[in-house]
């Protein structure tokens, strides 16, 4: 079973929900926690430990200048601006390449081949018993987040239970993370920003066709508009976490409320039961 934890707005508590859920589940079963927020991965801060790193590469073109006639076919074909053919040389901009392989196909001289280029890494660790942490890390300055997300998810394949922590937003990294999930948990906060962005995130999840439920974080009791929206859209409320300075303090220093505050392990176990119900699959 695969569960994505997502949110439109950043900073609503996605990672803390994912970390607490994973920690709670690891008491009784094997769980893989996959950090798919590869631009700003944070889960390793909750679960320190030594890692084994696997580089993530994407194929990019390399030109054999002995064969190249500077005909310009590759540059004309590339829609991403990664190849620019001049009279007597070719400029390759690997950071713009989407690795479609088109330049190799169109070259009449077979002068283009693909070579791997490192854009990030996946860091794997077993920080606590029965928990495997798999963190995707995009290198600074790179833009191929989906490639790193794919690599991280691939390393979690075969685990009976995987939790994917998505990046904020509603664009391609989120789509890449949601792919293949059985259920999605949308973490929100009941502010106008939180609700505005929850609407967008709910639209994405609906488009991908995955059952979803909502966790309201930092609730100060004024959740009426969020509850109303969830009722309209048929999104069940899976859990509500109140705002409290005590909870904020635990999280700010990288602690987990399921470990540090009484009652929360049971509540996260209850969250998992609620997710299983919406996913409709056997965990």
């Amino acid at each position, binding site marked *: 079973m695969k569960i994505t934890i997502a949110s439109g707005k950043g900073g609503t508590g996605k990672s803390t929900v994912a970390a607490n859920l994973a920690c709670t589940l690891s008491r009784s079963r094997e769980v893989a926690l996959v950090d798919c927020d590869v631009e*700003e991965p944070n889960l390793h801060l909750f679960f320190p430990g030594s890692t084994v790193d696997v580089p993530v590469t994407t194929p990019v073109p390399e030109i054999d200048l002995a064969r190249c006639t500077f005909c310009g076919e590759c540059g004309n074909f590339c829609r991403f601006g990664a190849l620019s053919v001049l009279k007597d040389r070719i400029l390759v901009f690997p950071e713009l390449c989407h690795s479609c*392989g088109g330049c190799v196909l169109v070259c009449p001289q077979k002068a283009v081949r693909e070579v791997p280029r490192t854009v990030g890494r996946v860091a794997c660790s077993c920080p606590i018993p029965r928990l495997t942490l798999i963190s995707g890390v995009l290198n600074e*300055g790179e833009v191929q987040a989906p490639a790193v997300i794919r690599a991280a998810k691939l390393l979690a394949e075969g685990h009976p239970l995987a939790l994917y922590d998505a990046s904020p*937003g509603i664009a391609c990294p989120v789509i890449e993370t949601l792919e293949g999930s059985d259920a999605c948990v949308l973490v929100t906060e009941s502010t106008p920003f939180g609700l505005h962005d929850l609407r967008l995130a709910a639209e994405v999840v609906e488009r991908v066709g995955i059952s979803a439920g909502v966790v309201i974080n930092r609730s100060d009791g004024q959740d009426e508009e969020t509850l109303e929206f969830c009722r309209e859209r048929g999104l069940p409320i899976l859990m509500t976490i109140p705002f409290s300075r005590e909870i904020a303090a635990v999280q700010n220093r990288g602690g987990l409320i399921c470990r540090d505050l009484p009652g929360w392990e049971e509540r996260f176990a209850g969250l998992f039961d609620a997710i299983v119900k919406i996913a409709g699959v056997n965990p």
Partner: protein
Amino acid sequence: MIRLAVVSGKGGTGKTMVAAALADISGVPQVLVDCDVDAANLELLFAPRRLTTEEFRGLMAARIDPERCRDCGICVDHCRFGAIVRNDDTWTVDVLHCEGCGVCTYVCPMGAVRMEPRVCGEIYTSVTDRGNLAHARLFPGSGNSGLLVTEVKKRAMSLADGADLLLADGPPGIGCPLIATVSGMDAVLIVTEPGVSALHDLERLVTVCRRFGVRIFVAINRFDLAEDICARIEDYCEREGIVVAGKIPFDPAVLDAVRSGRPVTRSESAATDALRALRNSLFAELGLK
């Protein structure tokens, strides 16, 4: 004109709250731009009156003509993005996954695949009582968010006549939308908060921003929620030679302001005082009056 982007690395640190406050009390002729096209929230605080709306077209997407398709599957073999899927016994393109590379068009022996423009969002220009605003909406699930940021910045530049300040509310993260935001800016203000995640994200963001040669400033939001981690952030900034331009206390007035749809600086509070001090020290550094 000074071009300043408010960014954060980690989401939810209070980027939009700070950007809206700076816009509210800047006191200089300015143009505003919301570069967080995934989740554009600036408009929720400024009740903009819309001037123009235009379609945003990203890269093209493939479309298979079922009349011409002979079911050979060559396009499927060549698509690296898994975008060609079986649907009701025919091959169709899943636009969520199509990157618009055009390989399928090239390899199809029947000429059955065409590239078509796709609308990925909308770009708006608006007026607010604090200057013109360029903003946008990315349709959920669309790619090309970096491209949309570049377009919305262009609209802002076209509205910038006579402005001394271009103020951008940026996206979270360090990927393409962030890079598209920071490129061409004079300075960034990174809004962070005292938490181990935010500090970690701050360090990665600084590495990316350094590549663009922009001046970097930091504001620490809700600094009093964990004074020890706040001290670590200040130590980090000192080591890196980054000016901490302001520290904003945790203040329920902030949430009240967001709930009533206005910048927090419209009323007096501890946060408002801190944001005024932030504005003054930041603008002095940037040479703005």
